[in-house]
């Protein structure tokens, strides 16, 4: 690099600095005042919110924070899956936006802080939208138990046929609702179409027809007709032939209404949509409102009625009395006229709850709405907590009803309620007894009353982890007891337990599995199948998914063979593809759940799903491939013969697929290949249409050699996959990089680099990035030894080009550059001037991220520059970096400091350009910066200077730095605190301890604990580095300050001091003993505790150095503290006594212990035995000579008296 160029860069830099300084409110470093914050702006906050996030903001916003619940099979939302082929990429909103809308108007709005507190334990707060779909499910009527012995009342309830019919209806409704929604979206523009149209025309054009039947209110006939002529409907309605034509017309009816006089219907869980209600009161609805035909009444809290907002609630009589003048004032309350019935239309109660919008003040004094929380529920005792939500369930207990007047059933209900409340909210012992009572009496209570109370509790939105765990435990226990009585409730239990199977929490999943498997064992296979069968082709994908998982659990509980016939039937269902999909999904879940236990049934399972590989539905094919992948993964390395049958369809099928289907097929192929033996594997890999995942996994397989890869795979691979398009999709990108690296492991770096190095100069940035990442990974793992000279040139050239051309600064580029330079080592020398020139230009860039990246690069290549002997270049870099210490962006400043530090590290203090005496004064004000990255890098740099070249700066400057360091002692990051402490030591060494110590001692008086502790540590370090006698006198003098904080601080410092100085303590023991005497007999517990820890460290330091007398003296003072009860205090005391035992030997200390081992008072014996046990564990052998003399019992150990 020419000097002229360098000068130019410096000039530009100076201009930039001047401009920045002139800017009003700039926080650029001002050399005249050495203060950066002339306007006192907050240093911890970045101004530029475009580039830097404010610290308070959630830095993970926009990332997925949850694992996908549907593992691998991403057809979470089948209903609105987009099956159209698009020519243009689809642009969707970011995750953040979607989340915002998703949460914006929901129930979560009520308390925005609910999930953010310390650590929310509510389950809903951490659930994904998908998991929240469990709230869409309702507890359905109790099922009839066809397997019961026809004696109990179990026969009543919905039969299998009824359920199946209802499912059919639900499907149809869902379809219609979708069609409506679809039209709502698309239809707006066609409002003006002619309203009258003759029906023959309508037959031809079905789409417009549907439009029309909505618009046309008068021609209900036509609309009904047209509804039946819908494409899909025809096939569906043929199947369920029981429905009359009346009903066929019905779904079309609401369409007319919904269009004109109602807002688009938002499905509100629990609240029936009015349009449905008008016609469908006979048939059970998809989302039934509570109490309609339910054996388990829906809980009021789940209904909409309770959501009446505060303002709209009716006034009670008491309130009216309070508001209006009463009889005293001459008014009287008039009786309502006879026959008057207040008009309270029932439907009012079920309209959608008013969405709480706008700002409302919380009025703590208005207690009129909230029912007063009971202090204590009668007959329950003190609970651990009681939430407002619990009131809805357990309020009955507090109503003060006379128990004598209640019927047996009611009493039973209350008893269960009380026990459940104890289990859910009680203290641990309470919980235990209640749980036992529930279990023991389960059969007396009966399944109905129990589950009718437990299950709604589990559906509660505000449920917390702990509560759920306990309730699930209750279910688990009573399942055992109830046994076959549980049958009518199987479905309800499944509804609440199935969501556990897709919980993020491992233990919740385990719990769910356990319950379902117990349930399966209690209810039997037949019941399980008849109960779950209707859910297999449920409209909601969520229900199907969870049902599949539950079925897999059932399979593991009752054995795969038992379930196989059913699975076979489901997988071949002709009626609906959803059923086939779910069936295959069950087969997929079984190996995931059971692992290699599927091996005995592998062949049957594979046969069961084999035909589905050629299913007409893409989703079924996809899930089948995934199921095969799961089976192969679980059975690895055995069982290839079971897959023989499907190998051919799989391989040929893979060619016909695209998109997700292809991925799934390849996954399956990828998992099957490792099962094959080596020759076989080669045969299948030779297939020309080789594909990524397969290659990657094959490349790792032993049977595939480097030669083979080079010959057959590489060309095709690079031709097909190293294309720009691959870089655009995140997944492909990753896959390509991974695969290339895998291949690289076999064929060597140069083979790969040769092929891709040209891509570094490609015009597509993503493609360049992909190349850089591959290069980085290869070079980092394999080194650069086999890179030829020509290739090396091209590589550096390319990577420089890629680095310079990046528009978005990316860590990938930085890492790539760093790895390549470090791998090449001294071979870089010819290119260094060019690299440094690039860095210098980029350091002068307008964009902060560019500057930051350039500075980061300096820290990465500093070592190599030193190895290449480019000291002059480093000097130049140093000077430029030094000029940039006025940088305003803390992130960039941190990087610049880091770069300077790495230069100082490699060139040494004396050769450093700029000289340290110039550099350090510039660092002093930067120490005040509160940004963690800046702090860490500055303190590191300062510490290094203080350590290696303290003489280059005068003492006054060091003192100033000391003052700044004091603040750093309370930094949040431990690394910073530690660095600050060490730096104290270095500085004290450099300028002598007196001044530093004075500063530190003053700091002992501050209130903040963290700060005092750190000061104490720093004093300890100073004492260690500058010899204790320079510190101790001042410290002991400080103890005379009659202030507890200071005295404690002194003791604390002494404790650290003696810990650090170790053996050196022997010269100071007698000096500090009087101080310790005083401290050990202080009234304050903490004081004695700290003194004890000082004693401990002294004693451990002077073991074997002849200070036994002092130690015994201290032991005498310590010993009375043995009966302290506070855990911290007693621990310190015991530790101190043990340390003294180390110093003076067990014999003397044990003499103190014998006295109390068999003391009449247990309170005395306990701590004595603790001492004895500790001594025994640590030095049992050394205790042998010192055991008490047992002569008077005539059992003395005479052997010990033997003398030769």
């Amino acid at each position, binding site marked *: 690099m020419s000097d002229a160029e360098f000068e130019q860069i410096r000039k530009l830099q100076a201009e930039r600095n001047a401009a920045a300084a002139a800017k009003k409110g700039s926080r650029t470093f001002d050399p005249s005042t050495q203060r950066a914050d002339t306007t006192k702006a907050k240093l911890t906050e970045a101004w530029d919110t475009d580039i830097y996030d404010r610290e308070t903001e959630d830095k993970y916003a926009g990332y997925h924070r949850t694992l996908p619940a549907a593992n691998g099979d991403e057809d979470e939302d089948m209903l609105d899956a987009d099956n159209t082929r698009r020519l243009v990429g689809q642009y969707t909103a970011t995750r953040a936006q979607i989340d915002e809308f998703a949460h914006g108007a929901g129930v979560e709005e009520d308390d925005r802080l609910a999930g953010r507190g310390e650590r929310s334990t509510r389950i809903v707060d951490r659930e994904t939208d998908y998991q929240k779909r469990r709230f869409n499910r309702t507890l359905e009527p109790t099922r009839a138990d066809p397997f019961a012995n026809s004696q109990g009342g179990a026969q009543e309830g919905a039969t299998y046929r009824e359920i199946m019919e209802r499912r059919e209806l639900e499907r149809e409704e869902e379809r219609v609702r979708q069609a409506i929604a679809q039209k709502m979206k698309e239809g707006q523009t066609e409002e003006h179409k002619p309203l009258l149209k003759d029906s023959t025309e309508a037959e031809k054009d079905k789409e417009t027809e549907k439009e029309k039947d909505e618009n046309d209110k008068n021609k209900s006939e036509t609309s009904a007709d047209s509804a039946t002529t819908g494409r899909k409907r025809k096939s569906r309605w043929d199947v369920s032939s029981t429905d009359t034509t009346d009903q066929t017309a019905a779904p079309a009816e609401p369409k007319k209404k919904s269009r004109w006089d109602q807002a688009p219907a938002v499905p509100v869980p629990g609240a029936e949509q009015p349009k449905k209600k008008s016609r469908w009161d006979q048939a059970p609805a998809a989302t039934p409102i509570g109490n309609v035909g339910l054996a388990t009444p829906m809980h009021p809290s789940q209904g909409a009625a309770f959501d009446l907002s505060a303002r709209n609630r009716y006034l009670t009589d008491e309130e009216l009395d309070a508001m209006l003048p009463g009889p005293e004032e001459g008014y009287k309350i008039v009786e309502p006229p006879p026959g008057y019935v207040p008009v309270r239309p029932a439907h009012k109660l079920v309209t959608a709850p008013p969405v709480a919008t706008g700002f409302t003040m919380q009025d703590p004094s208005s207690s009129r709405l909230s029912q007063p929380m009971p202090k204590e529920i009668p007959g329950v005792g003190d609970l651990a907590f009681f939430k407002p939500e619990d009131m809805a369930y357990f309020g009955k207990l507090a109503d003060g009803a006379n128990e004598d007047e209640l019927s047996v059933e009611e009493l039973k209900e209350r008893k269960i309620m009380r026990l459940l409340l104890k289990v859910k909210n009680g203290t641990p012992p309470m919980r235990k007894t209640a749980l036992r009572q529930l279990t023991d009496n389960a059969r007396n209570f009966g399944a109905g009353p129990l589950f009718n109370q437990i299950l709604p509790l589990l559906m509660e939105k505000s449920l917390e982890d702990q509560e759920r765990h306990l309730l699930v435990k209750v279910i688990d226990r009573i399942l055992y007891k109830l046994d076959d009585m549980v049958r009518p409730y199987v479905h309800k239990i499944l509804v609440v337990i199935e969501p556990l199977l897709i919980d993020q929490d491992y233990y919740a999943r385990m719990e769910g599995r356990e319950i379902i498997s117990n349930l399966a064992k209690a209810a039997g296979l037949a019941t399980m199948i008849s109960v779950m069968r209707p859910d297999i082709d449920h409209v909601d994908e969520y229900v199907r998914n969870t049902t599949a998982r539950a079925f897999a659990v059932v399979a593991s509980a009752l054995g795969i063979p038992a379930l196989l016939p059913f699975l076979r039937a489901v997988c071949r269902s002709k009626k609906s593809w959803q059923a086939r999909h779910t069936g295959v999904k069950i087969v997929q879940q079984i190996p995931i759940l059971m692992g290699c236990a599927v091996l005995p049934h592998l062949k049957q399972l594979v046969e069961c799903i084999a035909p589905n590989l050629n299913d007409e539905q893409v989703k079924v094919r996809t899930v089948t491939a995934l199921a095969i992948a799961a089976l192969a993964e679980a059975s690895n390395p055995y069982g290839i013969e079971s897959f023989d049958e499907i190998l051919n369809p799989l391989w040929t099928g893979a060619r016909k697929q695209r998109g997700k289907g292809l991925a799934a097929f390849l996954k399956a192929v990828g998992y099957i290949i490792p099962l094959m033996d080596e020759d076989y594997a080669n045969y299948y890999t030779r297939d020309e249409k080789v594909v990524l995942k397969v290659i990657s996994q094959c490349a790792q397989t032993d049977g595939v050699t480097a030669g083979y890869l080079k010959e057959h795979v590489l060309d095709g691979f690079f031709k097909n996959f190293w294309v720009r398009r691959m870089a655009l999709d995140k997944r492909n990108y990753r896959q390509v990089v991974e695969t290339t690296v895998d291949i690289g492991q076999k064929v060597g770096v140069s083979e790969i680099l040769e092929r891709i190095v040209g891509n570094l100069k490609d015009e597509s940035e993503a493609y360049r990035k992909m190349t850089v990442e591959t290069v980085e990974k290869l070079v980092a793992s394999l080194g650069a030894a086999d890179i030829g000279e020509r290739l090396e040139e091209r590589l550096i050239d390319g990577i420089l080009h890629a680095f310079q051309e990046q528009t978005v600064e990316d860590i990938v580029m930085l890492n790539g550059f760093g790895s390549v330079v470090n791998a090449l080592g001294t071979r870089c020398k010819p290119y260094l001037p060019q690299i440094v020139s690039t860095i210098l230009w980029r350091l002068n860039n307008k964009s902060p991220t560019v500057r930051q990246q350039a500075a980061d690069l300096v820290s990465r290549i500093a070592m190599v520059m030193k190895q290449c002997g480019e000291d002059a270049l480093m000097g130049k870099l140093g000077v430029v970096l030094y000029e940039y210490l006025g940088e305003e962006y803390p992130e960039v400043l941190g990087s610049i400091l880091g770069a300077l530090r790495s230069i100082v590290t490699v060139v040494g203090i004396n050769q450093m350009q700029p000289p340290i005496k110039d550099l350090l004064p510039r660092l002093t004000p930067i120490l005040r910066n509160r940004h963690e990255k800046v702090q860490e890098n500055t303190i590191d740099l300062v510490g290094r200077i203080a350590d290696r070249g303290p003489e280059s700066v005068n003492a006054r400057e060091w003192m100033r730095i000391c003052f700044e360091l004091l603040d750093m002692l309370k930094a949040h990051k431990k690394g910073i605190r530690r660095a600050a402490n060490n730096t104290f030591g270095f500085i004290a060494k450099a300028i002598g301890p007196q001044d530093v110590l004075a500063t530190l001692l003053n700091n002992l008086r501050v209130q903040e604990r963290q700060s005092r502790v750190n000061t104490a540590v720093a004093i300890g370090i100073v004492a260690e580095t500058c010899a204790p006698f320079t510190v101790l006198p001042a410290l002991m003098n400080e103890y005379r300050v009659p202030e507890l904080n200071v005295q404690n601080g002194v003791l604390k410092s002494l404790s650290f001091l003696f810990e650090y100085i170790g053996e050196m303590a022997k010269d100071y023991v007698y000096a500090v003993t009087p101080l310790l005497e005083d401290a050990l007999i202080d009234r304050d517990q903490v004081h004695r505790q700290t003194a004890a820890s000082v004693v401990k460290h002294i004693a451990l330091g002077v073991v074997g150095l002849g200070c036994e007398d002092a130690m015994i003296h201290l032991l005498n003072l310590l010993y009375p503290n043995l009966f302290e009860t506070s855990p911290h205090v007693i621990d310190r005391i015991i530790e101190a006594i043990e340390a003294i035992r180390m110093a003076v030997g067990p014999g003397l200390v044990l003499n103190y212990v014998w006295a109390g*081992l068999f003391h009449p008072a247990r309170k005395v014996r306990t701590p004595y035995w603790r001492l004895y*046990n500790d001594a*025994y*564990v640590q030095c049992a*052998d050394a205790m042998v000579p010192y055991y008490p003399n047992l002569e008077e019992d*005539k*059992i003395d150990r005479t052997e010990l008296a033997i003398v030769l």
Partner: protein
Amino acid sequence: MADKLRNQQELERLQAKYVGTGHPDTTSWEWKTNIHRDTYSSIVGHPPLLSYMALAQNEPVAKFRVQMIRKMLQPVGPPPPREEDIIMSNTQNGS
């Protein structure tokens, strides 16, 4: 509460690992038995000490060693059936 429980468990673990450790309810007999056993095992475990004592007793080392090991069996007599019987049983067995 939990603290107490943990202490209890810790003590039990300690006791399982080191037989010689005690607790407030350790009886004097148990303690003395342990003292004796520890003493003998210490002698047996230190070969120089063992040969020194064997020499002083004019016994072969191996024989003295076995003697020591044999003595570990109820070194202070059988366990006392009742509190007041301890002394009696000790006098019967005492050597």
